[in-house]
């Protein structure tokens, strides 16, 4: 900028300014829309989180709701469960989705369309049906137990839905089953934008398929891996549908999630929207922290 006096530099500076200005035009609609439909309600929700009471009779209580969180065993259980789902489920799903997308990107593979659609199908299946069917499959005398017993993998049926530990496992299986195909799409589409000549060159250099995967595919897909990790983290922290439909948070509240608790506080119990908003802001804070870590780990700042 210090050399901005020379005419050529002045021109590039003006050009840059103009580009900067056009850049804002590209994003202005989104900024306005999100401010109106998301930030404005979010500010209101924050004000709500400082209030307590039932239904429409709310009064300001300052940060009392935030203090109340720490003495609320249901909240603590919901938080622990949610973080457990997150730690186990997200990595497994991301890796699975990557593997599927690389396998299904192979142009010499037959029935690609069928395999892709089949694996994506769980994501579009209505949750109502899928919950009914899942509960059959994982019932005490359901097909899953029949299969495992028949294969002699287990000696007595597993209480997939009524045991606190196994119910969590069932939920993890259910989310993975439903969302792996969904994540696969992001990778599949991104793989099309990868320059194929890099693979050619690697093969000429004698790189194995494994090496190509780790040294070409993964680094190139990094922005998308970051994207899916953050989106899945958010999705899991806001996990609601599967739990609501498969276990309703039970047995006891051993599969309860934070989002399900928010729902209960708002609609199932006598509504306390203030406290529900407080719990929502906890999710927000958690996601901010985790996303920050993920951005850092992925080194997206360069």
């Amino acid at each position, binding site marked *: 900028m210090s050399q901005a006096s020379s005419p050529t530099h002045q021109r590039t500076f003006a050009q840059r300014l103009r580009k900067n200005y056009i850049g804002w035009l590209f994003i202005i609609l989104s900024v306005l829309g999100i401010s109106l439909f998301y930030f404005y309600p979010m500010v209101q929700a924050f004000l709500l989180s400082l209030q307590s009471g039932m*239904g429409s009779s709310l009064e300001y209580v300052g940060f009392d709701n935030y203090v109340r969180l720490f003495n609320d065993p249901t909240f603590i259980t919901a938080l622990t469960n949610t973080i457990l789902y997150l730690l186990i489920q997200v990595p497994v799903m991301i890796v699975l989705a990557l593997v599927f997308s690389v396998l299904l990107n192979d142009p010499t593979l037959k029935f690609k369309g069928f395999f892709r659609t089949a694996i994506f199908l769980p994501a579009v299946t209505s949750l109502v049906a899928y919950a009914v069917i899942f509960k059959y499959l994982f019932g005490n005398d359901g097909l899953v137990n029949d299969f495992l017993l028949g294969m002699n993998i287990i000696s007595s049926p597993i209480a997939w839905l009524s045991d606190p530990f196994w119910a969590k496992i069932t939920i993890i299986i259910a989310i993975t089953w439903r969302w792996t195909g969904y994540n696969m799409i992001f990778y599949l589409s991104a793989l099309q934008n990868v320059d194929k000549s890099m693979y050619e060159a690697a093969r000429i250099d004698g790189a194995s398929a494994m090496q190509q995967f780790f040294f070409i595919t993964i680094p190139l897909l990094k922005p998308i891996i970051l994207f899916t990790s953050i989106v899945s983290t958010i999705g899991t922290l806001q996990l609601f549908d599967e739990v609501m439909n498969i276990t309703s948070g039970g*047995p006891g509240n051993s599969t309860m999630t934070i989002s399900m608790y928010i729902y209960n506080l708002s609609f*199932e119990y006598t509504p306390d929207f203030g406290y529900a908003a407080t719990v929502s802001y906890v999710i927000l804070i958690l996601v901010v922290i985790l996303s920050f870590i993920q951005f850092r780990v992925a080194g997206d700042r360069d």
Partner: protein
Amino acid sequence: MREKFSTKFWLLIVAILTAMVLAACSGGDDEGGGDETTEGNGEGITAWAWDPNFNIAALELALEHYDNEDFEMEIIENAQDDIVQRLNTGLSSGTMNGMPNIVLIEDQRAQSFLQSYPDAFYPIGDYFNTEDFAEYKIAPTSFDGEQYGLPFDTGVTGFFYRTDYLEEAGYTHDDLVDITWNEYVEIAKDVKEKTGQAMLSLDPNDLGILRVMMQTTGTWYTTEDGTIQLEGNEPLQMALENYKELMDNDVVKLNSDWSQYLEAFNSGDVASVPAGNWIAPSVEAEESQAGLWRVAPTPRLDMEGAVNASNQGGSSFYVLNIDGKEEAAEFLGETFGSNVEFYQDLVQEVGALGTYIPASEGDAYQFENEFFNNQQVVYDFSQWMEEIPQVDYGMNTYGIEDILSAEIQQYLDGKSLEDVLSDAQTQAENQFK
């Protein structure tokens, strides 16, 4: 590649999109306009309810019985959970726009609505006589001395059982009438031993059966003034002991879904179904079992003052405090509130059992049901209904139950009953102070 998206293609997209946006908006225009006029002059009442074969059908029938040419009502079907969400969202935002005039609310949820949104509902006590209705329906539908709900269906419970299984185990109908839950547990063990069948099917996430047991003594999780009473609640303690006995003795076929619950009795896997009368159509759905079922009164808890009658579910109609409230209340009062004829048709055509007492003397109530061995099921239910002890469900039934169900899990694993209830008490008091 740049030619892939030609100008023509773009024009087409823009044209289609414009057409669709216009379609979407004009669709909204028609309705929006219509709504405003309805709210303006009070004509065109709307009602929200769930279940087309039951509540919706009842409303339609009521409309047929209502002699008022000027009265128009649109009945809108919504799932119960959906109604709860819509009402809460609408009422709490203060936007009454689009809210219905009449809404059906489950009795156990009613207090939380009435107390959370005090001005949102219209008192309708002047439009009918509360004394004509089963007494137990009044507490949940009124608040602060005002009557807000018009009592609709009863959830009066019965002990549906398979005559063949019970006979095989050595029991006649008389052995099953007016028994206690302790006796029920013993019978269950006998049935299991002699026929190999489970006695009943339960979803471990649904504590409805505990409420059924508890209400036979007129007790609830909370007292009338809303105080939480879990610790030292003897009926609850006894109900839990019975519940554990059932679970421990392998007489329960567990289910985790409504469809599995239905399957348990439709496929003949359980010998009995202790549930509200509304389960009858689902029992009758398996036609091959006609003549194999009967209904006995609900078992009571083994305590003084307990009666062989209880309740599970049931809902009532409420009128929102918006334009059209008088017309809506009048409609309800003239039909659900006082029309004996209407209730006869209701039983015959819809199979719904109301809580309007004068109706039970009508002919339709004397019907002998072949499926249930020619038992006068409807009449029996209507008699039991009058005995149901009144309880105030309060505002926190579902909240307390979530806390309790976590503790019950530990109780089944061996934690002492005293600790279970006192821990639940502490948690509940923390949460709902």
